[in-house]
C-alpha cells in the first residue's frame, strides 16, 4: 500500500536514491531504503548509497554526500561554505531584518522620532538598525530635538515612499483601515482618551513652552531613557 506499484531498478533506482538523499529531512538510512524497496536487498542498497557517495566525491562538484548519524545526507562541500554565506549576506543586504522592519514601521508612523523614543517602543537600542536604514536611504535625519542630549530626530525619505508604492505618508494604511486584513486585537482598541494630534510627542515635559500636556506618563519614561542615551 505504501509502496507505489512498480519498484524501480538499475539507473532509475539510483535516481530515486539520489532524490531521497537530497530531500530527506533526517539523514537517509539503509533501513529507510529497505523499507521502501524490500525486493532489492540491503547489500545492493548499501552498495548503491556508497556508489553515490563516490560519485559526488569529486572536487569539481559543489555538493557532497556525507555519512552522518548512521545515515546519508547531501550538503554543500565544506570548502565552498564561505560562498554560501556570502550569498545569504548579499541577499540580506537587499532586504530588511525583522528588527529593521519594526524600526522602520515605528519611524513611519511616529515620525519625527528620536532614538530613545524608538527604544522605548522596541525595547532594544536601535542604533545599528537605524544606521542600516539610513544607509538604505529609507530613513533620514530631520534635525535634533532640543532636549537634554539633543537626540537626532528621524523621519522617512522619498525613497521610503517609492519602495512601498506610496505617494505621501497620508497613504500609509491606518490600523482601522487595514482592520479587516489583520488578526483582531489591535483593531478594536478603545479610544479611551480623546488625544490631540501631538499626543505622542509630549514627552519632553521639562519644557514649559509646550503646553499640550496630554500625556502624563510620558515624562518619566523619556527622562529615564535620555539618561541612558549613548550620545
Amino acid at each position: 500500500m505504501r509502496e507505489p506499484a512498480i519498484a524501480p531498478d538499475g539507473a532509475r533506482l539510483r535516481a530515486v536514491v539520489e532524490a531521497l538523499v537530497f530531500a530527506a529531512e533526517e539523514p537517509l538510512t539503509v533501513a529507510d531504503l529497505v523499507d521502501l524497496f524490500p525486493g532489492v536487498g540491503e547489500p545492493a542498497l548499501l552498495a548503491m548509497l556508497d556508489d553515490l557517495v563516490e560519485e559526488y566525491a569529486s572536487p569539481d562538484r559543489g555538493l557532497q554526500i556525507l555519512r552522518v548519524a548512521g545515515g546519508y545526507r547531501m550538503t554543500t562541500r565544506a570548502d565552498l561554505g564561505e560562498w554560501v554565506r556570502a550569498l545569504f549576506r548579499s541577499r540580506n543586504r537587499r532586504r530588511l531584518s525583522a528588527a529593521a522592519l519594526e524600526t522602520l514601521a515605528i519611524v513611519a508612523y511616529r515620525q519625527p522620532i528620536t532614538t530613545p523614543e524608538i527604544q522605548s517602543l522596541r525595547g532594544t537600542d536601535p542604533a545599528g538598525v537605524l544606521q542600516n536604514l539610513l544607509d538604505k536611504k529609507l530613513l533620514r535625519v530631520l534635525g535634533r530635538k532640543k532636549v537634554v542630549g539633543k537626540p537626532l530626530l528621524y523621519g522617512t525619505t522619498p525613497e521610503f515612499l517609492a519602495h512601498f508604492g506610496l505617494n505621501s505618508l497620508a497613504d500609509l494604511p491606518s490600523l482601522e483601515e487595514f482592520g479587516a486584513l489583520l488578526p483582531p486585537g489591535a483593531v478594536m482598541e478603545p479610544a479611551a482618551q480623546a488625544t490631540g494630534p501631538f499626543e505622542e510627542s509630549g514627552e519632553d515635559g521639562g519644557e514649559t513652552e509646550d503646553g499640550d500636556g496630554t500625556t502624563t506618563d510620558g515624562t518619566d519614561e523619556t527622562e529615564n531613557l535620555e539618561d541612558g542615551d549613548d550620545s
Partner: protein
Amino acid sequence: MSGEPLAKVGDDTPLSVRLAMFEGPLDMLLHLVRTGGIDVSTLPLTEVARQCDEYLALLREISLESAGDHLVMTATLVHMKSRSLLPPDPAGMEGLEEDPALEPGRGTQHMLVVRKAAEQLQEREAVMELLYSRPPDRVQEFAGEQGIDADLYALLNAFQAILRRLGSDPAARVTRERITLVDRISWLMDLLTRERRVGFRALFEEMGDRMSCILTFLALLEVIRLRLARAYVSHHHEDILIVLAEEPPVPPAPASGEQADA
C-alpha cells in the same frame, strides 16, 4: 474607504443592539461584520437603524460626539450591506471600464475564464507538489538572519506587533489624522531644508481648503516646538519668517554588532 472612527464610545453607555443573531454593543457588531464573523447580507439593518434612532433620541442632549459615532457606525453598516447586495461599485472600477470583458452583463462569461485560469493554476500546483526541495535546515549554519522583502502589509504587521507587545497604550494608536499631520510635517521639513526660510503667509498661499491650512499650522507648531525651525517677526517683510534651525544633522556613528542582537 473605511477610515471612519471605529469604537469611539463616549462616556455614556453605548448602544446595545438586540437582534436574533447578535446582542451587544454596536461597535462590536461592526467589528464582527468587518472580520467576517457575521454575514452582513443577512443583517436586519432596518432593525439596527431603528434601535440606533431610539438610542439617539435619548442621547441627543447628552453627547453630540457619541451620537455622531453611532451614526457613523450605523452608516458604515448600511454601506457595507449595500456593497454586498449591489453590483460592483462603478467608482472603484475606473481602470477596468475600457476592458469589454469586464463590462456589466459579461459577468458569467468572465467568471468562466477566471475558473479556467484557476484550474490551470491548480494543475500546475499539482505538478509542483511532486517536486521536493532540499530540507530548510540543510544550510542553516550559513544562512544568518533571514531578510524580509517588505511590502505595506509587512510594515503594518510589524507595527501592529509592537502595539500588541505594548498593550493598549492609547498614545500608540494610529489614526488617519495623525498620519496626515506627519505627512504635513515631512512636507514642511522638505520645504525648509530646500529654502532655509519661508514666509508665514507664503506657507498658506496655495492652500485650497480649511483642513490643509489647519494641518499646515499644526505642523508648523510641531516643528517649532521640536526646535527644528524658529519663527520670528520680520518688520522688513511685514511677515513672520520661519527659519530652519542651523546645525546640520549628523548621522550617528554606526554601532557595530547592533543588528544581530534584535
